[in-house]
């Protein structure tokens, strides 16, 4: 089998994950995209391991490690996301802009996107979601 197939597949998967990380708004979706990127790397590792016939099987060992780390990462990441969601009522990455330097400007500056300036969490979630979460979110971030 040609090495180019798995290599190119890995590259494309990686870039798809990259796109997801950069473009997705929901933090959990971002985590999924990160998983895609990790898997792309794993595929590369396995493919090159098989190609090199490495006696140490470094590629496969590293793949196993990566998978383990990914599991740990998803556990911690989800815990953080859930905590943020509990405190803020939202898991939208682009609303977690507490570190933004707003200065004296009236509002945070966003790169385009007409809806991105809205303050209310989860704009299109079902009614109860916004209603439930908006109040504690305000109360706890204030």
């Amino acid at each position: 089998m040609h090495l180019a197939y798995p290599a190119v597949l890995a590259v494309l998967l990686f870039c798809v994950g990259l796109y997801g990380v950069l473009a997705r708004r929901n933090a959990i979706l971002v985590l999924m995209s990160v998983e895609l990127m990790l898997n792309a790397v794993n595929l590369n590792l396995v493919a090159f391991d098989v190609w090199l016939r490495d006696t140490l099987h470094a590629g496969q060992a590293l793949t196993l490690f990566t998978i383990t780390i990914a599991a740990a990462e998803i556990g911690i990441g989800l815990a953080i996301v859930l905590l943020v969601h509990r405190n803020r009522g939202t898991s939208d990455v682009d609303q977690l802009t507490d570190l933004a330097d707003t200065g004296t400007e009236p509002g945070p500056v966003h790169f385009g996107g007409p809806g991105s300036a809205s303050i209310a969490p989860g704009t299109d979630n079902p009614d109860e979601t916004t209603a439930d979460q908006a109040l504690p979110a305000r109360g706890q971030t204030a």
Partner: protein
Amino acid sequence: MTLTTLAVLVPLLPFLGAVAGLLLGRTAPGFVRPLAVLPTLLAFALAVTVAVRQGTGPATDAGTRLTPTGSVPVDLAVHLDGFSVLIAVLVTLVASCVQIYSTGYLRDDPRYSSYAALVSLFTAAMLLVVYSGDLMVLLVGWEVMGICSYFLVGHYWETPEARAASLKAFLVTKLGDVPFLIGIFALGADAGTFRINGVLTAAASGQLHHPTLIALLLLGGVAGKSAQFPLHTWLPDAMAGPTPVSALIHAATMVAAGIYFVARLLPVFELSSAALAVLAAMAAVTMIGSALSALAQDDIKRVLAYSTIGQLGYMAGALAVGNRSAAVFHLLTHGAFKALLFLAAGVVIHAAGTNSLATMSRMRDLRSRVPDAMWTMAVALAALAALPPFSGFFSKESVLRAAEYAAEGHQAHVPSAVGWTVLVAGLLTALLTAAYATRLFLLAGSPPQTRRARQQRDGETSVPAPTDNHFRTPVVMNAVLWLLAIPALALGVTAGKLPQWFDGTSLAPTLATSVLGVGLALVGVLVTYAAWRHTETRANRVPIGAVVAPDSVEPAATEAAAIAAHPQVYGDIAGAPDPADPGRLLLGPLHRYAVHGFGLDVLYSKAFVRPVLAAAGLVRFLDREVVETYVRTAGGVPRLLGLLVRRAQTGNVQTYLSVLLGGSVVLAVLAVLVASGA
């Protein structure tokens, strides 16, 4: 106990009393009075013991050096001689009287504890100055007195006058203290020691290279502390403090310090005839000017204040003619009768509810209501006017005699012109002093029968004096008055003994000066009386409203109210538009200038305050408009840059990542292109 130990204890006791009073004032109010009175009394007893044991013997000197300073050494030294022990007795006596008097006078004052502690501290500082044998230690006491006077003059800090007066006292005396400090350093540098004995030895052996400069610098400090022209302006204003404080400052402590200092270092001043001439001119101007001003004042305490300035002028004059015995003799008698005058004036002010002489002159029964104060005040005024056989006569005659002696050229180091200046000014001042003393007495305590007749004639135009039952002068206050009346009356008899304690020059009056002085004083008395009889009739036509002390108000509150009310009633803190005032008749066109101390304050304000304010305004303008502009620009440019950079700081992690990864891709492409040689 050795003599030195006793002498050390004298300033130490009031100091400890002050510390204890400050510490315990709030927690244990019951201890405040004993803590105020007892250490001072004990110090008085010790001072008397020291004086007796020191006696007329040779000066005692003792000192210890705590630590090397690296250059001119500083010693904790005690110097005891006739001058210091007697002045210490005076200081402790007056301080004790003031403390006892204050227990009655400020008995309900909420700040009595701190007041008493500060008075003790004041006393301790003065005693330190008196006993110290080292200039640096003396300076410590000197400066502590300055800060104490600031606090005590500002005791009624609720009134703007008191606040202004305390600041003025502090600043003006500090103005003199700056050259004084430099002078002390120069003196120490020249003499190689700060020990007064060492300095005097150096002066005698001609080691001082800049005597004139040093003497003039020191004179600055002396003028400030002893209220000599042109730095005297703080003293009349310092009347805004409580009356006992005035008594203390005027009689024993603050102002005496300057005279005492010059007396101690007189050999240094004698090295420079220029300094002596300056001192004489200063004394002459001070004497005459202050006497004229005293004649015009309406506030009873301001009259006394100006009289103090004048009497200090006498002492300075005596020093200028090189006779420190006479100066210190006058200092002693003056301390006695001036303390008495102030304390009596305090009683009168309280009884009248005002400090205005114009108002007092229209009060019925003022004299009969405070007879003790009136009698003792009469004694003290007689002493002030130098009428024989009161104490002031002897001391003033000794000054005049010394001046005459110098005028005839007998005094070494002293030019005869200096002697003449002092003599003429002293005689003229004797006349004026008698005049204002008479005026004060006539206005405050005019004979009752003339008043009564006038009242019957004119009906009720005069101010009703407060009813009798509201206030009894406390016994302690009256007792103090009579106690002080004794030295005021009789201190003159010591004139024969004192030379043994002092330098040995005779202090007995001579015929010529006595006749001249007493004659002039009598002229002053008679002229004033005539003028008063002339103007008295006008008083009926011009009733003057006055603040009358309400029933059962304690003295301190009355005095604070009187100080606060005076400008509101008369439109002036110094004078009152009273045509019945004999001083107005006597002074004629000079009156309006004399009321305000010949406009010296205005002059100061024009010459110093306004330029300083203008300079401050300029500096403020430069700081606000010029420097700030640079600062603002220096801050503004980075802020503008920051505004630009800040736009990237959206807080959106994905934006950051996008830029980061985009940059990575560009870099990777570049790296590949370079690697492949494209």
